[in-house]
């Protein structure tokens, strides 16, 4: 029983690939299809691309990509087709727009914030204290002499 479980674990990544029946016979075209598919979000299991997902919708979208490739459409046309229906969210690399500005800008903002913090922490050192006045020297000597 245990070996069966281990075998399934080992086979899991292979199962998550495009089903052989859906693959294109031409390896170059299939590679293009997978390149497109890896940039398309699976809307059901949102952290995965459709190439990595076994959801029904992901499988349908993989088929559509392959049909359109065979019909002679290019990468941009296929991406535009999906983008027009599912919006920015379907692209794993969303385009830069007003709505996604914060998304793209966050790393820059975080870097700037860190740099300013660093500047604040490394501000010029405080000047050394002024030399003691004669009165203070005398007071200090008195303190040192007293037991």
């Amino acid at each position: 029983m245990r070996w069966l479980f281990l075998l399934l674990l080992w086979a899991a990544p292979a199962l998550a690939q495009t089903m052989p029946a859906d693959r294109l016979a031409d390896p170059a075209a299939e590679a293009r299809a997978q390149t497109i598919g890896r940039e398309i979000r699976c809307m059901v299991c949102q952290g995965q691309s459709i190439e990595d997902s076994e959801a029904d919708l992901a499988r349908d979208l993989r088929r559509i990509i392959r049909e359109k490739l065979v019909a002679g459409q290019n990468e941009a046309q296929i991406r535009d087709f999906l983008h027009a229906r599912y919006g920015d969210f379907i692209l794993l690399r969303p385009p830069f727009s007003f709505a996604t500005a914060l998304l793209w800008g966050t790393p820059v903002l975080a870097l700037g914030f860190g740099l300013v913090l660093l500047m604040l922490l490394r501000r010029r050192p405080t000047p050394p204290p002024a030399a003691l006045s004669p009165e203070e020297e005398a007071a200090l000597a008195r303190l040192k002499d007293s037991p």
Partner: protein
Amino acid sequence: MSKTSRRLLLAAPLGLAAAGGVGFWYMLDGLQDGSYDPRTVPSALLGRPVPEFSLPPVDEQPLAGLARADLLNLPRPVLVNFWASWCVPCIIEHPQLMTLQREGIPVFGVNYKDKAGDARAFLARRGNPYARLAADEPGRAAIEFGVYGVPETYLVDRQGIIRWRWPGPITTEVLEQDLRPLLRRFA
């Protein structure tokens, strides 16, 4: 660098952090009362005409199928409801669809990736809210609409423009708070 410009430079990141904090506070607030859900995706088709599609009726029942032409030049706004007999949230929204049907609001059903027999049994048991009943077994028309799960409902106005999309079940709250005002507005 003058003293004021130094001060400004120091204030900039603080202002930014404060703005970020306010943003996150609103986001968390929305998450809590349900008005903001990061997992729901706004439809790309809002304000756009219904896509090109044509679907046959569900087998062995009297209602007609559905095509793009049936959604243009309507006497009143209609709902297009993607559903399936295997879909549990579809059971939750079913009574609300029946309410709409009783009030005379046309609900056009698209039966998504389902067997005709199962669909008929579902409606025989719970009642049929639909004025049209199309079968989308391959799920291609759903992709034209940008559907990513059932149930999903679209409000189409009299000119065939998509005015509202609701992913997930139409609960009584959604019906009263979201849908009814829109039905009045586009009547």
